[in-house]
């Protein structure tokens, strides 16, 4: 298919704030693409550049091969779902949906047909005469979707469309959005700060921070193979181990030296040379924990540890343990649970271990990113 919506070295500043700082991005036709990042990372500016609400200071934007950088919003075949929905309060649901077709001066009969089809799609045929003020949050959202889709845009832009909804409704709308995307088959550019939304909906995700793209990939790539400490820490939890490459092992593996820790084997797909410092990211669910020492294996990293904190979460339990002067987070899933089993408790001496393939050597590390993972227990429940 090739790229459909393309940003080429785009930059945009608002006064002293560099919102987007030289971003290049290619989105394929029909793709569900998400821009994921914390607030202020530039993702909304990217979306507004695509919609035409902002003009970039530098770089170009292309849609289906045509340069649309200077085109005003009304001349782009791109429609937006606003975070606040921005439904016209003085118009009925029907007139809101018909707005785009009416300004395009389509024939009356066609407008009627298209609007009715949309009302069916969002299952609101009986609410057509209501004003936005009389709708619930979920209904408003559906009207906003219909109002955009009725124009058959080449790309649908969604600006945190679920942020204003409560949790249960958000989950339902998530499924609905996914179904709508499958049904209409147009390209979606979805902006969110919620990794759960991005993961479950997207074909591909671009993780953004401070106006730049940190990584682009499928949800699994982003999660399992984060390139930078920011990606590793922003999406899910992780442990960062500061280390130095000691020597290469057979081909693809290498040995890492970590202060106060036994040497660690890691998969070195990036070919980092001995003597170089590197940060290793290990996801907590990849680490096993037990009172018994595991059988030795050349690919398995084992360390003695002491339990400092235990947080029981139902399907899983979180353990904060101290190993070689480091605090390590371990997540254990209860495959089988015996009530009479002697559980691991506070101050117990345990062993932790993980496979050399599960430690990820990061290309970039920024001090402070580890704060993103030092999550207090109550945040865990949100996942």
């Amino acid at each position: 298919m090739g790229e459909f919506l393309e940003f080429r070295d785009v930059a945009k500043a608002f006064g002293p704030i560099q919102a987007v700082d030289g971003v290049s991005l290619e989105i394929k036709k029909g793709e569900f693409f998400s821009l994921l990042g914390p607030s202020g990372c530039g993702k909304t500016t990217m979306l507004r550049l695509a919609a035409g609400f902002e003009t970039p200071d530098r770089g170009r934007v292309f849609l289906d091969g045509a340069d649309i950088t200077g085109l005003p919003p009304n001349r782009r075949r791109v429609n937006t779902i606003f975070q606040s929905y921005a439904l016209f309060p003085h118009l009925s649901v029907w007139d809101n949906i018909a707005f785009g077709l009416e300004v395009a001066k389509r024939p009356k009969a066609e407008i009627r047909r298209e609007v009715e089809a949309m009302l069916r799609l969002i299952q609101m045929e009986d609410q057509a005469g209501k004003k936005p003020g009389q709708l619930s949050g979920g209904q408003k959202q559906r009207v906003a979707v219909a109002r955009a889709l009725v124009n058959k845009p080449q790309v649908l832009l969604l600006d945190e469309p679920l942020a204003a909804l409560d949790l249960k409704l958000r989950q339902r709308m998530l499924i609905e959005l996914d179904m709508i995307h499958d049904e209409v088959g147009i390209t979606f550019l979805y902006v969110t700060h919620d990794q759960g939304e991005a993961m479950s909906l997207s074909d591909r995700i671009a993780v953004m921070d401070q106006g730049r793209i940190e990584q682009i990939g499928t949800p699994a790539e982003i999660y399992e193979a984060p390139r930078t400490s920011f990606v590793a820490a922003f999406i899910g939890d992780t442990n960062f181990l500061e280390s130095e490459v000691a020597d290469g092992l057979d081909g693809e593996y290498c040995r890492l030296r970590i202060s106060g820790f036994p040497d660690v084997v890691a998969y070195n797909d990036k070919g980092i040379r001995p003597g170089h410092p590197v940060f290793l990211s290990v996801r907590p669910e990849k680490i096993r924990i037990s009172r018994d020492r595991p059988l030795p294996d050349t690919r398995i990293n084992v360390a003695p540890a002491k339990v400092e904190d235990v947080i029981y979460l139902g399907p899983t339990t979180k353990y904060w343990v101290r190993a070689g002067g480091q605090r390590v987070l371990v997540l254990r899933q209860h495959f089988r649970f015996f009530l009479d089993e002697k559980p691991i408790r506070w101050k117990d001496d345990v062993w932790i271990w993980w496979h050399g393939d599960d430690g990820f050597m990061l290309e970039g590390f920024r001090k402070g990113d580890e704060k993103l993972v030092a999550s207090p227990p109550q945040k865990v429940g949100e996942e």
Partner: protein
Amino acid sequence: MKKKIQEAALTIPSFVWLLLFFLVPTLLVFVLAFRPPDPYGGIGPGWTTATIRDLARHPYWVIAWRTLWASAVTTAICLALALPSGYAVARASPRRRNLLLMMVIVPFWTSFLIRVFAWRSLLHPEGPVKKILVLLGLASPQTPLLYNNAAVILVMTYTFLPFAILPIYAAAEKFDFRLVEAARDLGARPLQAFRKVFLPGVRQGVVTAVLIVLIPALGSYVIPDLVGGPSSEMLGNKIAQRVFVDRNLPHASALSVVLILAVLAPLLAVLFRQRKKEKPEIILEEGG
């Protein structure tokens, strides 16, 4: 009981004052329209409908029509200037917004007569505007700029425009400008977005602006008196003439009744429309 006394104590002073000096005098205008004048410029004894009949015989309808027409044109011009101005003030950065707002309000504080006078000297046959227009070849030295309907409308616009900008600004400030973005996103051109989304959004401000200009314009007296000619007299001038020139108070009263009706008409129209429009919405809001 104590509450009742408190309420009475706080209400009576202003209530009685306005009763005596506002309500009673206003009603008196209606009453005096049916009393004969006395030769000394006062009110004669007895009752008569002669004044009202006299009113119908006079060519007052020309003046009444001109009053309506000039006020409507002034209102339209004020609205045409106030809408973009109010929009611009509301969209300015917060720091600049206060300064702009201040600049719009300050003329309100300056003396009304001085503002009219300023225009009188500007439009004077030897004043600067005339000279520039002649220099540019846009007017001949004989073109009168003063003492005509155009001058009256110009100065009325000048006087009432700040009052039109303020309510429109107040409405625009509360307006969610993302709706304009949404309209543009859905394919509306800038002017379409303005007309289809912004204008309905500030409807209340527009209604207030219309009333706030139209009502005093209908009652204009000083402006046509100072910059208008004999053929630009308005109802206000006729009322003043009956009072100060012929000293016929019943006649002035009758004319005032006509003016009151002219003012009441747009006011009641708006009130009626609003009542009709807002009731169902309120009921539905309570239901949902």
